[in-house]
């Protein structure tokens, strides 16, 4: 292979120290000190490794575990600030508030127990409200929970350059994105769907309900669970898309809260002014609530057709995923 440069006859550069003079001055002696010798503090030894690397699922599971286990213990996994972990715990406990009330109703029995059971017991409204009720869950709990979890999920990799850790290894962008998505969805799912499941089962256990109750309420419960899963998917898509477009976890969190609360507020104002609910299709929460009402079998609070909300949800998810994929594609391994 021939080089395209021939150095034959080339001359090297010349340099002198700054302020060295022109060499025509009177001679005088200069004495220099020798360098201090630095000792060696350990015996450096290269050790080879003969093991074998696991398949794709091992790598993917490592990403998943890193992000999910970090919530339980920061030791060895992704670091979540203690306040973030505490807030998530508070939200989870908050989501379970009907459980002690059901327990109380079973303890009290009689008229008082019956009243408490009516207020917090299993029915269409309460099952819908456990996942999709606006206050407190969709105003205080779920958006805040999502904002806390998605905050630095991808934006931290963009900010710290840690995307290089993933993509210089046999981790594909699809695996990276899907595992991050799964991690967020599992955390949200645990708080939202699992708390819903606990609520339902504790009602059965504490009230000593039988098969007839189960047969009556199970379809409603499943409808609510599907609504919860759609909520988790939608919030994860929006949250991760926002996390992928910035280098700031604060931006992703605030951006998510702004999307959820902002669209809700604008739609509400339009409804109050014009008595028309059509603009609720821009609000992810209201689309979810509308679909949830259908799944649980409640009369809708919205005048516009259900298909508009379903289409809107599909569009919101598609746009969010498109944005997420496009931004993850631009994550660099080498910075230029």
């Amino acid at each position: 292979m021939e080089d395209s440069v021939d150095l034959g006859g080339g001359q090297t550069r010349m340099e002198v120290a700054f302020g060295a003079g022109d060499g025509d001055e009177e001679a005088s002696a200069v004495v220099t000190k020798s360098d201090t010798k630095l000792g060696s503090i350990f015996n450096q030894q290269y050790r080879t490794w003969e093991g074998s690397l696991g398949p794709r699922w091992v790598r993917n599971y490592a990403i998943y575990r890193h992000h999910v286990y970090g919530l339980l213990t920061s030791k060895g996994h992704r670091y979540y600030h203690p306040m973030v972990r505490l807030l998530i715990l508070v939200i989870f406990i908050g989501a379970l508030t009907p459980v002690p009330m059901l327990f109380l109703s079973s303890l009290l029995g009689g008229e008082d127990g019956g009243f408490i059971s009516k207020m917090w017991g299993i029915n269409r409204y309460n099952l819908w409200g456990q996942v999709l009720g606006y206050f407190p869950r969709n105003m205080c709990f779920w958006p805040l929970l999502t904002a806390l979890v998605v905050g630095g999920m991808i934006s931290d990799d963009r900010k710290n350059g840690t995307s290089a850790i993933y993509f210089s290894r046999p981790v594909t962008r699809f695996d990276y994105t899907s595992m991050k998505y799964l991690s967020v969805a599992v955390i949200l799912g645990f708080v939202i769907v699992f708390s819903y499941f606990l609520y339902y089962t504790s009602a059965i256990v504490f009230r000593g309900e039988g098969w007839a109750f189960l047969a009556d309420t199970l379809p409603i419960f499943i409808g609510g669970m599907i609504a919860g899963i759609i909520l988790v998917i939608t919030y994860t898509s929006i949250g991760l898309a926002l996390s992928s477009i910035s280098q700031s976890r604060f931006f992703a969190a605030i951006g998510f809260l702004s999307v959820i609360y902002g669209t809700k507020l604008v739609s509400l104002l339009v409804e109050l002014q014009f008595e028309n609910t059509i603009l609720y299709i821009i609000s992810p929460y209201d689309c979810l609530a509308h679909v949830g009402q259908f799944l649980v079998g409640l009369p809708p609070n919205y005048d516009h057709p259900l298909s508009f909300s379903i289409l809107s949800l599909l569009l919101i998810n598609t746009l969010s995923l498109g944005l997420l994929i496009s931004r993850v594609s631009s994550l660099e391994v080498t910075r230029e």
Partner: protein
Amino acid sequence: MIENHQDSSSKNGDNLSQENFVIEAKGLRKMYGPHLALDDVNLSIPSGAIGILGPNGAGKSTLFKCLLGLIGTTSGEGTVLGYDIKTEGEKIRSRIGYMPEYNALDSGLIAIDQVRYCGELLGMNSKVAAQRAHEVLEYVGLKEQRYRKIETFSTGMLQATKLACALIHDPDILICDEPTNGLDKRARKFMLKTLKRTVQQGNRTVLMSSHVMDDVQEVCDRIVLIHKGKIVVQRSIGELVNQVEREIEIMIWGGASKMEESLISKNLSVRRLGRIIRIKIEDEETIKKVLESAVESEVQIRQLKEYEPDLEDIFLLIMDKLGSEIKGSSELMTPDHKGGF
């Protein structure tokens, strides 16, 4: 021109070509829209330590990305450790350790967890990765600091941690992008020693990209120089040095101008910068003529040596031949490159 084919100690040598080149490329082209980033790149890299040189924007990063199988090439073909860069990127990345130029560490983790996680991302079992993380952190000199949070690390420790992340699976090829970036003298010396040991003791191939020619010369025995997307030189440093004119360098005290005139009068080819004078070696008589001139001019010769061109000289000569107006490799550095040395 690459003549010395060293034996590869690859863990899976079957994939390598008969000549044991760890990296080969033929007619590799990469275009970003209308911009030609790599132009007809032909590479044959044997195992050992290779310096990848070139000005900013020459195409080094694009070449790395192509070799890692991260981006598709417009045309041409290439193999790394016998694996096709177009179709077997994942296999290539399993066998390569990449040490990025910029910080790529999670500041919230402690060093041992960061390195272990890097191993897990390669598919290593968690326990094995943890054990190996201890070994490599010791190797890069962070044994005492392995339980410290990365956010408390100095630049030298961060670079060492990145190196540990790259070495955790004992890769066949280690790609280091500016490994001495921002390091002070002591940390730089240790980093270079570690890279050298990885080549000599570990029998691994190191591809090192740097703008600090002294660092490349310290570790590497051959260079690949990229300019405007083309490979302009790929050969051993020794061969390049031998192509350059041999000169004697003398340092004069008292009367350098007189000395210069005397040397010219003896028909010697002379260059002078202040008290430093270089004389082209014409024949065996040259030194004798120099000493005679010193006696005639009544000056002191404080130092006389045959000037050994270093890699910086070679680099500047090549850039000069290519019509580039670079006066020193330091011009290629950003503030991030400059450490305390």
